[in-house]
């Protein structure tokens, strides 16, 4: 039995599509219900539906063998996992954003206050990459508000189209990381269930390659 942790929503749908294209019967995973564990004895697949931020935890502890989760969550949670495939979809960027007037002047502000839903990514970026101490203000949503009303100078958040930023007079100042959906595998499962997991990963990689080729052509 292989247990796959998914986060409900678009990401899960796409992951199931890929698995199906790779030749796996994912009927169980598509079942419309409030059940959190969807199991199919026949196919030996079990899907668990978890909050995105919890997917790496389920996989690290071996409660799930495989997980599909955004790179943003992986960076924020910092779990000890195999991160084996970039599924390519859900692509966006983790960015430092603020008023456009701060462009190229970010380093000149001392003791910055940074609003974010991602305190760990923010800390790693400013302290690790930029060698700078900042004050991190943890927020839970509408992060764009923080620089507008003076709670923080800048924010670190996910940027897809950039529309929300533009509408609020903000701009991307620096790119922290590229984000997309990833397949992660528990370190023990990879060894103990190698004969099931490795072929599944190979088949998924093949599908991703096909999708990427289609994208290029299209």
């Amino acid at each position: 039995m292989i247990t796959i942790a998914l986060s409900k929503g678009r990401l899960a749908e796409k992951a199931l599509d890929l698995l199906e294209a790779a030749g796996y019967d994912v009927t169980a995973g598509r079942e419309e219900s409030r059940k959190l564990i969807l199991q199919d004895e026949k196919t030996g697949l079990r899907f668990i539906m978890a909050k995105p931020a919890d997917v790496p935890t389920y996989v690290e502890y071996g409660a799930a063998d495989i997980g599909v989760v955004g790179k943003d969550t992986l960076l924020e949670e910092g779990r000890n996992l195999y991160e084996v495939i970039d599924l390519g979809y859900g692509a966006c960027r983790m960015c430092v954003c603020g008023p456009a007037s701060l462009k190229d002047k970010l380093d000149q502000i001392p003791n910055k206050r940074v609003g974010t839903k991602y305190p760990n990514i923010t800390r790693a970026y400013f302290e690790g990459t930029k060698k700078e101490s900042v004050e991190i203000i943890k927020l839970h949503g509408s992060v764009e508000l923080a620089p507008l009303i003076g709670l923080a100078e800048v924010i670190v958040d996910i940027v897809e189209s950039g529309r929300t930023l533009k509408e609020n007079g903000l701009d991307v100042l620096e790119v922290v990381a590229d984000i997309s959906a990833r397949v992660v595998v528990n370190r023990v499962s990879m060894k103990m269930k190698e004969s099931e997991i490795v072929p599944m990963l190979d088949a998924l990689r093949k599908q991703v390659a096909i999708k990427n080729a289609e994208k290029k052509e299209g």
Partner: protein
Amino acid sequence: MGNYRFHTPDGVIDILPQEASVKRKLETDIRELFSSHGYSEVETPGIEYYDVYSSGDFVATEDMFKMQDKDGRIIAMRYDGTVPVARLAATLLKDEKPPLRLSYVENMYRFKLSGGGKLREFSQAGVELLGLDNAEADAEVIALGIQSVLTTGITDLQISIGQIEFFRGLVEEWGISAEDEAELSTAIDQKDLVRIEKIAERLGLSDEAKELLDMISNRFGTYDVLDAFEAKVKNETSRAALQNLREILDILKDYELLQYVSIDLGMLRSLDYYTGMIFKGFTYEVGFPILGGGRYNKVISTFGRELSAVGFSLGINLILTALRRQDKLPEFVEVDAIVGYKDGEGMRQAAFATAKALRETGLKVIVDTQRLSEEELDAYAEERGIDQVVFVEEEEEQEENT
């Protein structure tokens, strides 16, 4: 005040009779195994000066339980077994001629901030073989690691063996900077093929190098893997690493333990700690390795003695979890027999003698202290699931029982 009085702190647990008894037995069996292989047990203190761990940068500051002594010096609770043994080998045991074979079974304390749910106090058993830098020593330690897991009753065991020097040789050959080496090794250790490819592109590595990186991440096996790499790798360091692994496999074959092991050259954690062979052990139903170790030739030099070293540690609590989840916990009997006695001259003395005789046969025996009658004693034994009841009342019966 007092709101926490019913609770144990995060990450520490009470272990109840059944698990405590199994745990103690595991530890005893493992101690005997170590000792039967010539490894002498040492006890190091539960607290060390923080400097013991910090001077070699062995442990992240935030992962240690720290406090101050009365002079303001920082004390750290024992984080692992290896570093204290390394300190010991370079100080109190500095005149002991190598090779030294030492072992420990102790509680470790780790204050991991991230994660949660992981134990912060847990028991580890381990050995260190000091002063021998060859494949014979590497293989002895791996073999003892496998045997110690098998001793616990776990039969599904998979050991992955890697070699840090193999990767180091490639890094030298390709002329990669320390920073890029760190990034590349992390990507390989996470089997993050996309990132490996990106790094390889950025560094302008050759197609041959890229193929090797791909093989490192994907090829597991035994001799076949070594053959495949030997055909492709030219630098001395990497070839010596492969030769070391080949010898280790040869020796493990003679131990008749080859069926448990597989080579995984992509295991690249703790590069600044390990200097050669590394290995990890896995079983079903626990998401973490139950066994880990390797060669760490530079650790003891932190304490001023040049001494090569190889060792492993075994997570006793993880093994308990695995045994429980694999339905392999042995049945636990609190009490096998109860001995009661009637009022009267010499009856109690006879009961004690009876209990003693029964205990000598290996049974767990209690003598009734509630002063129950024979009927009450039967009922009590029934209720508590005690198999044998002995009631001492008459001279003749007493003799029958003893």
